[in-house]
């Protein structure tokens, strides 16, 4: 009797004959082009500085003036009033009181980059990081700003940045999805955040839920592998005889191959999620207990393992749509939230660097917007949404480390110099991957769509 392995060899030998051009992967019907594997690794527009992306997303809106944008004048002017142009999603003139950060700042590294006491571990690796202190975006609503940060559109359903990268570059390991999202809970706007929308669905993010079964249906229901192999072998033979009479239909072939890949994934994905072979030292780096299957440290370490295995775009959602950085009531919440991600992120950067991966891995940290440096009450403990100026950072993959780019006014209210819009961040990210954001288009409904719509400028000054 044939085992599935034997069948697999049959496939491989056949693949090298009749249909060798097709990679072993899922196939999308790509209405715009040939029927090639859309996930096959593809040539970039220009030489890339980075091969993959790890996109860290803190949900809720992390305060910029309490983390990376050190504003001494805000501290000095604490309690003074100013006129703000926007408050609670409304434009207008508002008399508000400046409120100093309750966290102290210090300079770190050779670069002397200011980082608040919320992120001491990140401070220790800040020379690898380029802080963007003049980020801005259009919306100060969570759902809309989250969509803008991911899809370039705050309004309409559009493909997410990970889908665009998958569409533009394909992926190198066909046993794993090209775009994976490690999220304990959905962020605002739900799975639209990693949807492929009008791009072929093979480019959508595959949701990995931290826990015992991170990918749905990854575990064979029949514990006996041999029995599953018997089934797959019969399936292979039936499909082969079916295919023999229809051999020009690549879709049938793709389906046959998808089972092979799935069989590979059953082995490879759990292996990627299995941290038992990681050393104590590595676990310590991420602040992770042995045996843990959740937490941001788990997400970061699994991200490194998936990056090693060739996943093109990894997104790590920090928290989700509730209990997050949205500190309206008490900025003290930021302490707990920062503590949960500071060490894991520093560990990730250190680990990637030690393994020689940081050079080719772009690590981006962002959030939907910052928080107001001012409030209606002089002694209010919280801060409101603030989209006119916020902070993000970017590291590795062709970015200048130890740099601070962008300036705000003295109180952190308005981005003033070297402003970076969400569209610009997207354009820059694509550029570092070798993609021209104006040329990465998809024809949909009579129009060529882009991630950056009709906007976006590459921030050349931060590129090494």
């Amino acid at each position, binding site marked *: *009797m044939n085992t599935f392995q034997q069948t697999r060899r049959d496939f491989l030998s056949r693949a090298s004959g009749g249909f060798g051009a097709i990679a072993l*992967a*899922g196939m*999308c*019907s790509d*209405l715009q082009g040939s029927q090639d594997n859309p996930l096959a690794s593809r040539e970039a527009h220009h030489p890339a500085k980075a091969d993959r992306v790890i996109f860290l997303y803190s949900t809720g809106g992390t305060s910029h003036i309490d983390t990376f944008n050190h504003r001494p004048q805000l501290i000095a002017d604490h309690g003074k009033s100013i006129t703000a142009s926007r408050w609670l999603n409304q434009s207008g003139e508002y008399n508000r009181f400046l409120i100093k950060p309750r966290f102290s700042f210090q300079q770190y590294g050779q670069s002397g980059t200011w980082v608040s006491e919320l992120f001491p571990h990140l401070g220790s690796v800040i020379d690898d990081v380029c802080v963007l202190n003049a980020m801005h975006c259009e919306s100060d609503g*969570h*759902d809309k700003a989250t969509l803008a940060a991911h899809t370039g559109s705050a*309004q*309409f*359903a559009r493909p997410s940045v990970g889908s665009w990268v998958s569409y533009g570059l394909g992926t190198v390991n066909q046993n794993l999805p090209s775009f994976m999202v490690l999220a304990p809970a*959905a962020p*605002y*706007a*739900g*799975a*639209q955040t990693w949807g492929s929308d009008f791009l*072929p*669905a*093979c480019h959508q993010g*595959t949701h990995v839920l931290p826990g015992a079964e991170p*990918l*749905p*249906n*990854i575990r*064979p229901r029949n514990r006996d592998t*041999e*029995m*599953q192999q*018997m*089934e*797959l072998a*019969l*399936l292979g033979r*039936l*499909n082969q005889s*079916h295919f023999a009479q*229809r*051999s020009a*239909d690549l*879709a*049938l072939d793709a*389906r*046959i191959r*998808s*089972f092979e*890949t*799935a069989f*590979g*994934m*059953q082995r490879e994905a759990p292996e990627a999620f299995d941290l038992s072979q990681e050393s104590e030292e590595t676990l310590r780096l991420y602040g992770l207990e042995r045996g843990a299957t959740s937490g941001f440290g788990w997400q970061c370490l699994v991200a490194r393992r998936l990056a090693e295995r060739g996943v093109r775009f990894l997104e790590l959602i920090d928290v989700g*749509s*509730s209990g997050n950085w*949205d500190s309206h009531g008490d900025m003290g919440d930021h302490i707990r939230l920062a503590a949960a991600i500071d060490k894991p992120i520093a560990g990730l950067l250190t680990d990637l660097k030690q393994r020689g991966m940081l050079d080719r891995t772009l690590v981006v940290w962002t959030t939907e917007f910052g928080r107001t440096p001012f409030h209606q009450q002089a002694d209010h403990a919280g801060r409101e949404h603030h989209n006119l100026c916020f902070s993000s950072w970017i590291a590795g993959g062709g970015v200048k480390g130890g740099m601070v780019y962008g300036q705000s006014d003295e109180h952190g209210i308005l981005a003033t110099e*070297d*402003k970076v819009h969400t569209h610009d961040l997207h354009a820059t990210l694509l550029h570092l991957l070798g993609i021209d954001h104006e040329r990465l288009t998809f024809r949909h*409904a*009579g*129009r060529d769509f882009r991630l950056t719509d*009709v906007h976006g400028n590459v921030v050349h000054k931060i590129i090494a």
Partner: protein
Amino acid sequence: MGNFEKVTRQFIIACVTASIVFIAQMCRAENDEDFFESRVRPVLVKHCQDCHGAKKQEGGLRLDSRDAWMRGGDRGETISIGQADKSLLIQAVRHEVADLMMPPNAKKLDNAEIADLEAWVNRGAHDPRRETVSQTSNRMGLDQARTFWSFQPVQQIVPPNDSEDRWSWTSIDAFLHAKWKEKETTGSRVSPVSDADRRTLIRRASFDLTGLPPSPEEINTFLSDESEGAFGRLIDRLLESPAYGERWGRHWLDVARYADTAGDGADYPVREAGKYRNWVINAFNRDQPFDEFIREQIAGDILAQSGPVEKYADRVTATGFLAIGKRYGYKAAPDYQYLDFADAIDSIGRSVLGLSVGCARCHDHKYDPISAADYYAWYGILESTRWAFPGGEEQKRPAHFPALVPAEEVAKRDKIKADELERLDQQIAVLKRERSEIDPNRLAGGLDLGLESQPLGKPPGPPWLSAGPNAVLAEAQSPFAHVHPAGKQGVRIGSGQPNEGVRYVFENGLRATPEKQMHFTVDFRAVEGATEKGAFRFYLGRGVIESLAVECSVTSTEFAIRNGDKWQVIRQITPGTWYSLRLTLDPSAKSLTGSVGTLQDQTAFQDIQTGPNWDGVVDCFICDGIGHVPGAACARDLDNLGLQDHAFAKLDSGPVNPIVRPPDIDQRMAKLDADIKAMTESRQLVSNSVPYPVAYGVTEGATVNSRIQVRGEPQRLSDVIPRRNLEVLGGDMVPEHAGSGRLELANWLTRPTNPLTARVFVNRVWQWHFGQGLVASPSDFGSRGELPTHPELLDWLANEFMASGWSVKSLHRWIMNSRAYQLASVDQAENIALDPSNRLHWRFSRRGLDAESIRDAMLAVSGRLDRSIPETHPFPSVDTWGYTIHSPFHAVYDSNHRSVYLMVQRNRRHPYLALFDAADPNQSIASRQPTTTPTQALYLMNSPLVHDLSEAFARRVASIDGDDAAKLRWAFEAMHGQIPEDAVVDDAIGFVSAYRKKLAGSQATDESDIAAWSALARVLMTSNAFLYVD
């Protein structure tokens, strides 16, 4: 910037400008042409044109030709010729305007460059650059549109009549044949493959029309019918099946972006969405004329007003098409309604007309003859419409859902409900009054509202409400006994805080009744030795300060009463002394009289005005710390409250005796309690009942013409655009007094002279039958869309379709009875080389089953499919809805009904539907993009559903008579519609017995038998012969 700095800067600018004017005059010798070329063009190219040129038009402005800057940008005129200071361009480069500092990012031009630009403007802004053709828009003008294929009237076409054509069976075939022949002249000869066998045909037709596989019995019936027209009769049978509407309705639901949730950040469930879905399914099943189908979806609520009453509900439900789109708002007020409208306009344009009208939101369409004015002409129609609001973050309850019965019926049923509620309320009130009259609490301590039955030392409990350090105490007992029999305790209010105190809500409040007065009494004292200076208050009126009748205010030394808007001090008081207050209210005169005092020392007052806005109801008493003197109020004791519609006994009338407790009191109380409970429950039922069904749809609103929103930004309003049709479709105006214009829009969309609607729909039907349309871009018939491969066939179909009374079932019959539909799906090397994607229909294109068909087929073959129409989804009760973007609605509901009835959620999609490429409900979907991914294979290998259904199938197989071979033949036929050759059957027999043996050794058991057949079932239902249709 300080004022000084500003002044200084302006001064410097003034000086520089002055000197420039001087220099400019000096250089006048340099001619304009040279000046522009040497000084201006380089600056524009270097600093401006990246963002204001061919590639980008930031702010709607281009500076790369004279024509372009003369047109200006979003802010209007860019250059005021001869007046540099007044020119926006100059102000921008000078950084004079805070939000217009150019170039952006603080890279200011150097002074010489600014001076050159100023000089250029002042000397006339000579610019030799004329707009080239490539710089102008590629947009198709209305003139060009008249010659573009899809905007031309549908042509009357006679099908080809080729005497040499021996292949064709129908007119459709004749068109296709003619195209092959036409291609032959260019040397590319495709020829049709052979006809499909009959097993293939019945499987193809069954999945195509019903989304379900044929059963072995149905296959055999068809195979044994060898008479003429057997396939035609099969088509008729399938078209009569309710499964037809479930399959074809789903096609339309893709286009209509159907979902069961609203799609705002909190993704509110929409309980009534399913009514629209069912309406669509029904419309297909009863072959509703397609033009009427469209008209009702756009204006069903208006049509309903004049139509037969039996159609009323259906027609209003049909407008769900408009309402069902993705919503953006957080509340019913139109905060993000411009985005809801963007979705609706885009969807109407794409689904009905095959035009991307939505692209004209921010500017005129870049390619098609649709202007921003066209967009806002439709926008006005939508803005004149009232939209059902599904609920959202800020307003968590649905609103404005149109009734499914006519307005007069709504009024009638509302009235019946209100009357019924009033009747029940009255009955409950009677019962409660009866109860309160025999209440032992009242009997024990009189009418002081249960204070006597409260535990000592604690704040008074229900029915009292207490806030702050209050306690029921023996020392708070009033000495007066003229109203209530002497009791043992009162309440002490220990707090001086403004918002602390006690509240009592009278179950039987008093309501103004002609000729009747209201009587209130309370005993009170400031505690002995009180020194606080502030006042406490007695409030009497309706609800918690909702409607004020009387307000008294007491400090430790004086008693005051509000008279109109003034406080009137009535008398002095002494701490530690008890006073009794009596009030008599005359609601008709809005005045009151009363007295306050001790037995020996009473002060009467009269002609006091009640609260000016008092509504005549008294049902609430409050004592808190908000009085006529600010500051902390003193601690005080209260006792002996009373409210009734007849006078209380006088203060000096002597003590009243305790009432004797009647013997049967407990039984009577229990009975009354039970009656009250039952009556209250039935009131709740009536109150919750909706007296008429509603739909998620639209109704007519206040008519308005909308203004153009510059660049799609709702704050930047430009010209008012009257409501009208798209210009390219005639530009007809909405007549005055016509309402929103939706009825007119519905008629414009479906009039036979509209060149698009019939063409677009017959093309969709063609696409749903064959996998691709004659026009390969089914929702884009504009200039960026694909041209039709067979334009004559498309027009012939469109005409026949309209002539048939827009009968969709007729369209199916023409298409499916064609020979082209009945071709095999086999390969043919030459044809594949010439026409790999089968645009010429030389064979039938094999297709994968879609998400719904895979699941439904698995359920069907395993005998688990529930063919009934399910009730509404088990959404949580609307009373519990509190969804926000922080905690949005999310649910996945299991069911064995057909997949079209699964709950389709927008923001977090149904995991199965998303995995197998069902339509994304966030926008109108013209054609799904099937994918084949390893995660789908994992689902097929390991999901609980596939395993459960395989086992159910195994039990069916086990019950089939005969040996393994017979069972297997049945299994193959049920799953694949085919019985394979013996070698394959033998292979499968080998598999089943090997599997059995492996599980149970040589002793086969029932269990191992089922397990083996389940394994086989899994293989069959995940194999390509199952997942694809030839």
